[in-house]
């Protein structure tokens, strides 16, 4: 099993590099660079800068070098811990992103737990009581959940809160706690706000995982070993939970591989609607202004977050399923 983990870790190294190339390419795609959009900004505000200043800016930011060179310089620096400067905010990227990325990770992780905790029992119920009224209702709600865009749901939740509660539930902290030090009261405040983005992000995930759990469990329920268990005298519910459910957990756990990217990506849009202090809003801004280092670092770390999550789920899967352990 150790070999398996080692192999997966080794495989992640080329993935990291591939991700960094992708991130860099995306940032560089729009024509021009930060200086161009900065100049455009200045022009619209009525005080255009002169070309000499712009050229000097270019050289200072190293934007006049060829692409490949810029890429390697970026990666080289990043490996030493220097992620460059944000042109827009004029502060090192590292200062800006860690807090934000931490929040993104927190929201994604909590949503994942929420999705698993809710989808699992509902999926089991839906499979065991196939074609009952409960199953039909659940199926319909699942489809509804998968059909609703998450930002729409976020808007709707905000609308409801304003109409009926009188205040907006955006953000992760109440105004008092935004810059307060971390203590129990702050954590409590966070929890009070956290449930909304978690629910909004999680709805679509719950819906698809319920469908997956239901389908896999239905497959397993028809298998001979379930009959053997019944012939031994096991009570029905114990039988189902102990045997086919256990086997159906495997594909369930492995869904992390694609749920996590969906969550992290969904977070981008939802957090701009709900004004959450996660990576999303500043990423959008960075893309619009071509703030190269900031945007690149954000994209890259979001991808890395997903890769780590997938690794953890693979390890979990191996620990869980003896067949994989022995095959490797």
């Amino acid at each position, binding site marked *: 099993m150790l070999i398996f983990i080692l192999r997966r870790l080794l495989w992640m190294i080329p993935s990291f590099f591939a991700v960094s190339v992708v991130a860099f390419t995306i940032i560089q795609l729009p024509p021009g660079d930060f200086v161009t959009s900065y100049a455009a900004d200045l022009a619209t505000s009525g005080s255009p800068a002169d070309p000499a200043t712009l050229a000097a800016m270019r050289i200072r930011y190293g934007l006049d070098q060829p692409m490949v060179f810029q890429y390697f310089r970026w990666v080289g620096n990043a490996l030493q811990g220097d992620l460059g400067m944000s042109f827009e905010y004029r502060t090192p990227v590292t200062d800006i992103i860690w807090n934000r990325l931490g929040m993104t990770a927190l929201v994604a992780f909590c949503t994942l737990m929420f999705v698993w905790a809710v989808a699992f029992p509902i999926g089991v119920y839906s499979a065991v009581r196939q074609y009952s009224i409960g199953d039909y209702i659940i199926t319909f709600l699942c489809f509804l959940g998968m059909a609703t865009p998450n930002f729409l749901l976020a808007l709707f939740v905000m609308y409801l809160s304003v109409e009926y509660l009188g205040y907006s539930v955006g953000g992760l902290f109440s105004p008092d706690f935004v810059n307060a030090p971390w203590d129990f009261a702050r954590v409590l405040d966070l929890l009070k706000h956290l449930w909304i983005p978690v629910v909004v992000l999680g709805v679509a995930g719950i819906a698809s995982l319920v469908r997956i759990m239901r389908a896999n469990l239905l497959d397993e329920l028809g*298998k*001979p*070993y379930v*009959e*053997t*268990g*019944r*012939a*031994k*005298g*096991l*009570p*029905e519910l114990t039988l189902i939970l102990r*045997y086919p459910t*256990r*086997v159906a957990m495997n594909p369930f756990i492995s869904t992390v591989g694609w749920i996590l990217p969906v969550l992290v990506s969904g977070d981008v849009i939802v957090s701009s609607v709900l004004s959450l202090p996660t990576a999303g809003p500043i990423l959008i801004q960075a893309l619009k202004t071509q703030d190269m280092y900031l945007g690149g670092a954000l994209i890259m770390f979001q991808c890395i977050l997903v890769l780590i999550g997938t690794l953890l789920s693979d390890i979990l899967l191996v620990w869980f*399923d*003896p*067949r994989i352990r*022995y095959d490797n």
Partner: protein
Amino acid sequence: MPPTRTVNSMTDRMTREPEPNDIVLEVKNLQTWFDTGRGGVLKAVDGIDLTLRRGRTLCVVGESGSGKSITARSILNIVPKPGRIVGGEILLHGAGPNGAPLNLAALDPKGRQIRAIRGHDIGMIFQEPMSSLSPVHTIGQQIVEAIRLHRPMSKADARARAIEMLAQVKIPRPGQSFDSYPFEFSGGMRQRAMTAMALVCEPKLLIADEPTTALDVTTQAEILDLMKGLQQLHGMALMFITHDMGVVAEIADDVAVMYHGKVVEHGPVNDIFFAPQHPYTKQLLNSVLALEQRSHLAGKSVKANQDDVILDVSNLTMSFGGRQPFFGRKLDGPVKALDGVSFALKRGETLGIVGESGSGKTTLGRCIMRILDPTSGQLIYKGRNAPAVDLAPLSRSAVKPFWRDMRMIFQDPFSSLNPRMTVFQIVAEPLRNHGIESGDELHERVAELLQRVGLPREAMSRYPHAFSGGQRQRIGIARAIALKPQLIVADEATSALDVSLRAQVLDLLLDIGQELDMSYVFISHDIGVIRYMCDRVAVMHRGRIVELGETQSVCDNPQHAYTQSLISAIPKPDPRLRGRTSRIRYISESVS
């Protein structure tokens, strides 16, 4: 010479007469029906009576669709939906209040009463040992669960009892096996483990639903021995469901013959075999006994030229690279599926290739057809009026022209016909691809072929799913002979068919073979089928041919130790031979 051991099978006693007050379970007028939707009903079990006595074995025998498996499940009240027990009684003696019989059919299928009986008073083992055990729990966990469901015991005590039981079913290293997973074992071992699990609470009755059908014949013999031994030890009643009359003759005291949901005949085993009353029983026995001898058509082909060899295989070797799980032990490095196989096939001859799983016989068939590429060796093929060519080194496209002359019949009648094509399209495919005919001529040709194999013309416009397994196999045969080939490789062509159909299909093949002057390479795991139709037989074991000769002499007087063990393990459909033949065990490496 590899070591052998002679083992007297444990059935040394003669068949006994039943004693009164010995009854464990009585089934009276049981009816289990299936709702087929839109108000239709399928009467899977339609009023049957059975009696199970302590220490005696009742074999319930029938072909597919007879209802025997549903009967077993009805007894334990685990009939799968949409089936349900609609009538009759299942009386378990001594289980009711004050020792009166308890009607199991009247109990709530999910209730506590029936659950207390399942696994404790009545144990059951199933057909597919791989999928009948949970893949993610150890064997030990599953057995301990069976113990602790019915007896309050500490975990340590339960573990000890489980290991004791594993030793009883002769699983080697029971302590270690306790912590192993099912996928680490071979088929025979898994079946032993399942038996241990079913018997661990010492039930009065053990129901076995075709437990040896999915096993090799040598493994089957071991398991049958085991069951008889356990029955003598524990004294329980055994209800053994099978479709194999040889097995029935080997172990039954009483027999019940089922057909379309009814018991058409029942009685002591000697009565059934030597004085059958019902026409179905007679027909069943006839088909079985027919396969005990040679077909009347066999060996009639004109033995023209002893030197007219159409296929000369020398030193054929085929290895699969990489790690291969090999029944409980994982070997690193390539596995030799074929190891220096050599034989010569004459024109008009039928050569049988017999072997168990892992022997390489299927691989041999596919190498001959060049579906697979052999690693080394020669495959010299001589077509009609053509020079001899070595097929082994040829590329895929160079081999293609030879596929007019060499054709294949597949094992699985369900997957060998494209379900999305009509029968006409399927049989016409080889004709079309060789540009032979088109249009009306094609129609006529296909109709002829279908009639040759015993199917009506109208079958052309239907799809495969409208036909039974036997009929589909005939369609496959029609496809194979469409181009009037010289050689046909039949890979387990009758293994998926009911016994009563087998002789018919084999006769058809012999008949066509004589008419078209074809040779067969007939691959099977069933030596009875080979004895029925083949002139010569090659016995394969672990990729090698261990014996090759005339069918009659190999079957009657085997030379090689493995052949001896194979022949002696086959159950004969004659109860008088029970216990008289000593079985020879071939000990090479793995324990089955």
